[in-house]
């Protein structure tokens, strides 16, 4: 049952092959027996999930079900869920139970979907290996010593290990696509403004975007159908109509123009990775796609620009965690300053502190022009690069990450090494474009991801291309060893 896709499960529920309660129990059992190994969940909502499943079964019986009614799934623990602990992977929020739902959480509730629990993540979504969670590192199902990627490593690991058919995630610099690639699943970061950020705990407001993680493009399309849409309570949400993303999956891709940025396919790229990606792109070419070399001249500046802008925004976004109203508060503060200093020193982990410090520095008097303003100028150049590129091509293809999953601690003490993990994904966030990662091959038995970048609001086309790829390849069906 756990090898079925969301689309298949939805059909099975509708045809009453099994009940949502049976389905939900099955996944809850898997989490209970297997997740000790992966640590992909922070919170499991067993009782609530079963109650929701029974309610869904009634809806199915009464004929008022939607495609998602009774389907189990999981939320990245960055989405606030009413009455359910929402930690953001941090000690700061270890006991935080929001009195409200994120818009995304509300949308799944309205569909009658069944939330199994909240998945592990890098603290405040800051990391590319899921080693920075207060609740312990997440293990990649493809190898006990391998990172799942980050920051949505819990969601990626849980989907890959078939502990949930699908999971929500967020992507600020690659946090959906990179773990999707490292865990051999499908992930989509929508256009900035496509999915409401309300109730999604902010890391870097101008870059954060929620999106789906699942095993297939079709399932991702089904998720995006639920998640996407204008939210008047999010001022950065865009009021564009939401198409049915599943309706265009089967469109022919003959004549599709695929751009290959020469800056991403250099001699620096690992030869095995280059070979695997070229082989994957060749599959699309076989289906009638036309390949074009393009240039994104400023892409080399994306990582440095990102590591000014994202920390700057986070330094302000995380100021609210001050021990005054909610969250971690130190014992017996002497005075106000002591309350602030100890609550924040104790509540935040190393990587979070590092980024708050970088951001605070970048915004300080005398440095603002050299760092923040300059980074914003670079951001515009990067955006312009894409605008020019999309005049000639429909999608842009590249590797999602420089390498497959790496070992715990292998990036050592140098944070910059870790930051370079996102070299292919970050520019998409800076430009606000949609990007996707799909399983596209293997290197030494480990999955790798093909990244597809689309024009604004072109998620439908990305999903179409991904689905067409998945109809002629089977990378997305491969399970980690031991998972069957």
């Amino acid at each position, binding site marked *: 049952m756990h090898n079925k896709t969301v689309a298949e499960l939805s059909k099975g529920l509708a045809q009453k092959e099994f009940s949502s309660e049976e389905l939900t129990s099955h996944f809850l059992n898997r989490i209970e027996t297997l997740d000790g190994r992966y640590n992909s969940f922070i919170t499991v909502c067993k009782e609530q999930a079963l109650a929701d499943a029974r309610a869904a079964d009634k809806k199915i019986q009464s004929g008022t079900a939607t495609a998602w009614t009774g389907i189990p799934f999981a939320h990245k623990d960055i989405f606030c869920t009413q009455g359910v602990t929402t930690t953001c992977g941090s000690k700061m929020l270890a006991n935080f139970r929001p009195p409200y739902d994120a818009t995304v959480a509300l949308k799944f509730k309205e569909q009658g979907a069944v939330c199994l629990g909240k998945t592990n993540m890098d603290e405040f979504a800051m990391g590319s290996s899921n080693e920075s969670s207060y609740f312990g590192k997440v293990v990649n199902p493809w190898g006990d010593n391998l990172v799942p990627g980050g920051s949505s490593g819990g969601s990626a690991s849980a989907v890959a290990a078939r502990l949930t058919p699908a999971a929500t995630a967020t992507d600020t610099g690659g946090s959906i696509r990179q773990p999707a690639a490292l865990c051999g699943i499908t992930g989509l970061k929508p256009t900035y403004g496509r999915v409401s950020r309300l109730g999604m705990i902010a890391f870097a407001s101008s870059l954060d975007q929620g999106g789906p993680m699942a095993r297939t493009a079709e399932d991702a399309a089904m998720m995006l159908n639920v998640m996407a849409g204008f939210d008047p309570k999010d001022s950065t949400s865009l009021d564009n109509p939401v198409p049915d993303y599943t309706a265009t999956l089967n469109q022919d891709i003959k004549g599709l123009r695929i751009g290959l940025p020469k800056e991403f396919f250099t001699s620096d790229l690992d030869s095995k990775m280059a070979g695997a990606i070229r082989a994957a792109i060749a599959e699309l070419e076989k289906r009638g796609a036309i390949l074009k070399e393009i240039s994104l001249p400023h892409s080399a500046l994306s990582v440095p620009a990102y590591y000014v802008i994202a920390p700057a925004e986070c330094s*302000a976004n995380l*100021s609210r965690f001050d021990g005054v109203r909610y969250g971690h508060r130190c014992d017996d503060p002497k005075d*106000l300053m002591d309350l602030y200093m100890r609550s924040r020193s104790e509540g935040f982990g190393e990587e979070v502190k590092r980024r708050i410090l970088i951001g605070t520095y970048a915004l300080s008097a005398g440095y603002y022009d050299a760092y923040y303003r300059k980074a914003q100028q670079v951001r515009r150049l990067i955006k312009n690069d894409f605008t020019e590129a999309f005049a000639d091509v429909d999608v842009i293809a590249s590797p999602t990450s420089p390498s497959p999953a790496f070992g715990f601690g292998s990036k050592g003490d140098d944070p910059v090494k870790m930051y370079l993990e996102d070299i292919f994904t970050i520019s998409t966030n800076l430009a606000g474009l949609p990007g996707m990662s799909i399983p596209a091959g293997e290197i030494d038995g480990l999955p790798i991801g093909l990244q597809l970048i689309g024009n604004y609001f072109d998620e439908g086309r990305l999903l179409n291309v991904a689905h067409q790829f998945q109809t002629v390849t089977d990378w997305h069906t491969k399970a980690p060893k031991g998972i069957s």
Partner: protein
Amino acid sequence: MQWETVIGLEIHVQLATKSKIFSGSSTTFGAEPNTQASAVDLAMPGMLPVANEQAFRYAIMFGLAIDAEINKRSVFERKNYFYPDLPKGYQTTQLAEPIVGAGHVDVQLSDGSSKRIRIHHAHLEEDAGKSLHEDFHGMSGIDLNRAGTPLIEIVTEPDMRNSEEAVACARKLHAIVTSLGICDGEMAQGSMRFDVNVSVRPKGEDKLGTRTETKNLNSFRFMERAIKLEVERQIELIEDGGSVTQETRLYDGDKHFSRAMRSKEEANDYRYFPCPDLLPVVFDDDYIARIKADLPELPDNRQARFIEQYGLSLYDASILSAEANMASFFEAVVKACDDAKLAANWILGELSARLNSEEQSVSASKISAVQLAALIKRIKDNTLSSAGAKKVFEALWNGENNDVDAIIEANGLKQVSDTGALEKLVDEVLAGLPDQIAQYQEADEKKRKKLMGGFMGPLMKASKGQGNPKLFTEILIRKLGE
């Protein structure tokens, strides 16, 4: 040495919107602590701001009223600092691109001259909550009802040269925002708070002296006194060989005393940057034009109209037109009694004296416009003498009775205007004053006027104060001339 004072003002004006600037919470003053604070106001994780259009509309109204440039694109920025009553750890405000650009106001001074004060800009921002330091056993309580209340901060150029000009400017801005209806103007509740930047320099010197900023003055009287105190302090300091430190000061109005709060060296680096949760707000010309078309009457226009329409003196018109509440009270009285002159006299006289002694504004008047008009009508139709009218006013103010006629009746204040009865009384009184009559008849016109009092006293006494003095005078003049 002769010193020149240089003053600039920063004024925080709470906008009278129903809900907060970035959330749907109510802005009503005086609610139980933290009952008007939503998840957004509390800066709960994941909460996002949505800008209140009404706040922009009000800010634009203000900008148009001071003849300022309206910036069609304005940007909110984050001003970062930690304080318990600032839940997000930053204040959302405007810096580089404020909604209202440069403008000006003209103020009247007591010597009859007027002066133009330039406004540097005005920007939109959110108010902070309140920290309560009493009754919490050494800890502080936080009330976030005020957090997120929309403010415009008005920043003037350093164009004022003494406390009179500063207060006149403050009063003018108060008159403008209350006339526009964008602020309730209740200074005691903090609806308008003044920060005063003061420096001194030798007369003739171009370079500005080092300034201090005295914060949160919430009455015109305190503002005037705080400025005078600060000017004295600075001059004394310099003349004693010291120098002024750039610092923020706090003025205690009750004790008439100020102290330094923090110096420039201790000042925060606020690390402003554009708020990524709020996109730049852009208005088109039509939007601004529609607001302009609907702009209510401004104090300057109203003053001109009062002179024109009601024949008031410049002085009377300036006072009655300044505040919207006062102006509408005046016009309501005029409308009901049809006598602008009497209405102006009574409002500026008796009523203002009462309000001043009780430190109340006209909106708290214990006599309604309708009552005052009824009183004036009874003066006009000779039912009341001016002495009687004052008694009625007194009774109304004290709430003895709400009805003017009932008060007149109950207190026997009705004037006798029956000419026959009055003539009879005049005859009786004159019969007992033959010497005075002779004196009167020998006197010239000028002296006669003075001598009239000698007859009026006994006449009023004989009529138990109810005789119409005007009629008495007429009858007397006629009889004495015979």
